[in-house]
Every structure is written in structure tokens, then in C-alpha cells.
């Protein structure tokens, strides 16, 4: 038989433990949240491309190479000297498309704004020389508007602007450095169609986001 004092002591210890763990989890979660400014989530991501700045700019100005790189993923239409319209398929499929307007501010700096898409977002990309001749740092700032609940669902489904940005930066790096983005879906396997679909979902999870 447990005495009243013991019961209260155990309850107290339980409350302290739960509160402590809860606070630690909350603190850790906060550390992983993007910054918020005036209702916008703001994230900064970067990737280092092993090419000089001019080489990276050349890649984006070589229309043929760019179209080949974007084939099946996005189309670019030039509106005037420094403005482009980009139309792209939602990365996770589902047939949704979004349109964005891209403005080249100066060599090595561009801005984009989504004009038609599921999530309001805008951003800025800057090319900076990497130290020690390591090529070019592509630094991106992304701002997007999304309710916390929708963001949580988006994160769970791998469908969130920050994840898409990190994917895009990794893709750009691969295209500039080696001209292709490796894909191992549809590599031979002994899987049934059902197992293959389940494996594709796992592949998607393992390919989504990552450190840009």
C-alpha cells in the first residue's frame, strides 16, 4: 500500500519530469523553427557550387543548357531584359503548378515572387565568391506565408517551401557541376508494383530537403 506522502512525492516528481522534458522538447523545436517576420516565415539557405561566379551566371544565361536542365520540371519565358516568367510543376507531383516572376537585379542577384501558387512566397538569391577558391556560394533568402498547422502538414507530407528551396539548390548545384541530377527511381529491382510504389515514397522522403 502506497502512503499519501509517497503518492504526492511521485506525482510531484512526475510533474517535474514531464515539465522538464516538455520544456527541453519545446526549446529544441523552437531552435528548429524558421524566423518569423510580420507573418512571414523567413529562411536562409545556401549551397556552394564549385565553379567561379561567372561560370554559374553563364549556366543560367545559356538558354539551351538551361532548357535541357529544366526539361520536364519547369519552363522559362523571358518577359523583357531582366524579367522572366517561370512555370513549374509541384515537386511532389499531384498535378499542381505554380507560376513565378523572376527579376534579375544585377549580375549575381535575382529576386522571385510566386504570382500563382498554393503558397505565397518570394525570395532573393545572391551569388558570392566562396573563400579559398571554392567556387561560388549561392545564398538564398526565402519568405513564405503559411499557417503553422498547414506548415506542419506540409512538412509531414514533404511539401513545404523550405524543403522545395533546399531541393532546388541541390539540383542547381548538381546541374552546374555535372550536368545532371542523378535519379535512381526505376532502377531494376525484384519488387512488385505495390512494393515499388512504397519504395518510391521512401525514396521521396530520403530525397526531400536535406542540407542545401
Amino acid at each position, binding site marked *: 500500500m502506497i502512503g499519501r506522502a509517497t503518492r504526492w512525492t511521485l506525482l510531484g516528481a512526475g510533474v517535474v519530469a514531464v515539465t522538464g522534458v516538455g520544456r527541453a522538447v519545446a526549446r529544441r523545436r523552437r531552435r528548429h523553427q524558421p524566423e518569423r517576420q510580420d507573418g512571414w516565415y523567413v529562411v536562409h539557405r545556401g549551397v556552394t557550387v564549385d565553379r567561379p561566379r561567372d561560370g554559374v551566371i553563364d549556366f543560367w544565361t545559356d538558354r539551351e543548357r538551361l532548357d535541357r536542365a529544366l526539361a520536364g520540371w519547369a519552363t522559362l519565358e523571358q518577359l523583357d531584359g531582366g524579367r522572366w516568367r517561370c512555370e513549374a510543376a509541384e515537386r511532389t507531383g499531384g498535378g499542381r503548378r505554380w507560376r513565378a516572376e523572376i527579376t534579375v537585379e544585377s549580375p549575381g542577384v535575382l529576386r522571385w515572387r510566386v504570382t500563382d501558387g498554393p503558397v505565397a512566397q518570394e525570395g532573393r538569391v545572391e551569388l558570392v565568391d566562396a573563400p579559398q577558391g571554392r567556387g561560388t556560394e549561392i545564398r538564398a533568402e526565402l519568405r513564405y506565408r503559411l499557417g503553422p498547422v498547414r506548415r506542419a502538414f506540409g512538412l509531414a507530407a514533404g511539401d513545404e517551401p523550405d524543403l522545395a528551396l533546399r531541393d532546388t539548390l541541390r539540383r542547381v548545384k548538381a546541374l552546374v557541376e*555535372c550536368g545532371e541530377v542523378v535519379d535512381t527511381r526505376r532502377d531494376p529491382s*525484384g519488387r512488385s508494383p505495390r512494393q515499388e510504389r512504397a*519504395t518510391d515514397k521512401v525514396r521521396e522522403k*530520403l530525397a526531400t530537403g536535406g*542540407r542545401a
Partner: protein
Amino acid sequence: MRALCWEGVGKLAVRDVPEPRIRADGDVVVRVRASSVCGSDLHLINGYLPAMREGDVLGHEFMGEVVETGPGVRRLRVGDRVVVGSVVACGGCWYCRTEQYSLCDNSNPQPVFTEKLWGHSPAGILGYSHAAGGYAGSHAEYIRVPFGDVGAFRVPDGVSDDAAVFASDAMPTGWMAADFCGLKGGEVVAVWGAGGVGQMAARSAQILGAGRVIVIDRLPERLATAAARLGVETIDYARTDVLEALREMTAGRGPDACIEAVGMESHDVGPSYAYDRVKQAARLQTDRLVSVRQAIMACRKGGTVSIVGVYAGLVDKFPLGAAMNKALVLRMGQMHAQRYIPMLLERLAGGEIDPGYLATHPLPLEDGVRGYELFEKKRDGCLRTVLHPSA
């Protein structure tokens, strides 16, 4: 085509699978002539690297004949007999350009797992689970090799398939292990593991100038092979206290360099090993660290410990105090295949290294399951099973 597939922990089967196709400009398709089992496959088969999916095609150490090339391939032609490095490298990132191919930035299309586990994602590896990119492996009639110009190398005439196949992985891994030791000439080098990689590391150390090479294992036939083929000294750890023996053999100094070519499923005797085994079986640690621990303890003060056995995650009882206070140099990594293969093929053609004897069990692909069983259980003196899918 037929391929050896992973069907669940400890389960393999030879199945019909679709043939690979050229998917990118730099791809080549290779008809596999020889594909070796490797000790690191056992970690995948036994579920210690938990990123396999049912139906994955195994195999990463292979050679064969180019049967199709992508439009961007310049260096290779259909009909070339090639050996392919198991590590996939794009050839265009900073790591590839500085010949650190196994750290390639662009060849793992599924980097999230390893980024979470290790902080960054190294290169993809053919047939080596979804943590290493989810590539189909080489225990099949055909395999797609991405970045063919970077990863496939023509085999010189006169070099047999069963020798050339080891230039794919065991030889470059062994060479890199010895290269890490920074040998200047005359050093004593101890090698843990008398499997394919260990024996190649021992031979590489000899070529790079080691004065004495001591190989440690528990399988008498492997130790006998190493002694006979390479002229190395041997220690049977099941019968001898390794640390005592090494101290005595080096008059108290300890080996100048210690190469660990065993990996996460290393064996030992005694209660501490039993404890490690239980912990690993219960998935409370991913790796058994027996041989690394011994290497660190045995190494002379200021010496080098070179680790090429494969480790996945977290370990306990890592003797960091010994490593720190003895001022050891620790070097480790997956091998940079593309850096070493051309040089190794030349040495192979010149007869300086002859790994053909490692292929103790050449078998047709249909016998793949038995081949792995022979290899894993070390039956019938099996050093390496080499599958011949085109036979």
C-alpha cells in the same frame, strides 16, 4: 534479366527483374562478367545498415563489358572490357576534382538519411542500400553505371576477369588503407582482417615500403593464404593475445601503423565481445568495435590507425583516451576508387599485385544465395565468392 535480390533480413533470392536502360547522358550499361561478394554486403543483408528495401539488387564490386553508352559518354566504347569503381562519383564537384571521389557531392540522390546520421552525405555506392542512393547493384546480368566516363576503366589485355574484379573495390580500399599510413620505408604495419581487403592492404603496405606486415585473423586458412601468397607474419587472435603478441614482435614499441579492415561485425573472444554482440543484436549500438579498439591500443605512440572496415553509426567503449594521449593519427574513409584504379590496373598488368587468388569460389549467378552462405559462414575455405552472371 536475372538478379540477386535482398528479400528481408538474412534472406536473398535470385529473381527476374527488368533490364536497366540509359537514363542520363553520362550513363553506360555494362553486361556483368564478374561480380564479387564483399564483407560489407553482410552488414546490409543482416540489417545492420537499415536502409534496404525488399527487392533491392545487391552487389557493388564488379567488372564487365560495355553494351550501351549514353550520348554524353566520350571515353568508353561499346565492347570495352571495364572495371567499375563501386563508389559513384560525378567528376565535377570539388571533392571529385580533388580526387576525394567517395565524398562526391552529387552522386547520392537520397542524401537525407546520411545527412541526419552523419551530418553530410558522402557519395552514392552501387548496390549499397537507399542510404547510399538506392542504386541497383551488380549481382545481375546488366547494370546501369552513372557517370561512366568517371567510374569505368578499361581492363588491360591479359588481366583475367577474376583478378580485374577486385580492382573495383578490394584493391583500392586496401591501397587507400596503406596510403593513409604515410609509410616512408621499413615500418611495421599490422593489419586486422585477412579477408580480401585486408590481404590487399597488406600487399599494398609491402609495395609502399613497409618493412614488416603482420596480419591478424582467426581463420587458419585465411592466415595461411596470406602467409603463403604475401609472405606476411600472422597472428591468430583466437589463440593468441593480440596486444601481447604485437608488443613482443615489435620489442615493446607497437606497430607504426595499424590498418583495420574488418568493420562493424568484427569478432573476438571473451565476455566483452559477448556484451558487444548482445548490444548490437538488440540494436543498442550499430557497430562492434573490437578490432578498432585493439588497433588503437596496439599502435605505437604517435603512430597511425587507418580504418577502412565499414562502420555505420554509434559505438561504445571507443578508447578515445588512448588515441588522444598516445597522439595517434586516425585516418578513415570509403575508398576513392577512381583515384586509385588506373594505377592499380597498371600494377595488376605488371604482375606486382595479383588478387586473382581471392576468388576461391567462382559461381554462376543462380548460385548466388549459396555463394553468400559459403562466404558468410566461411565454409570450404571461402575467401571470396565471385558470381559470373554472363556465364
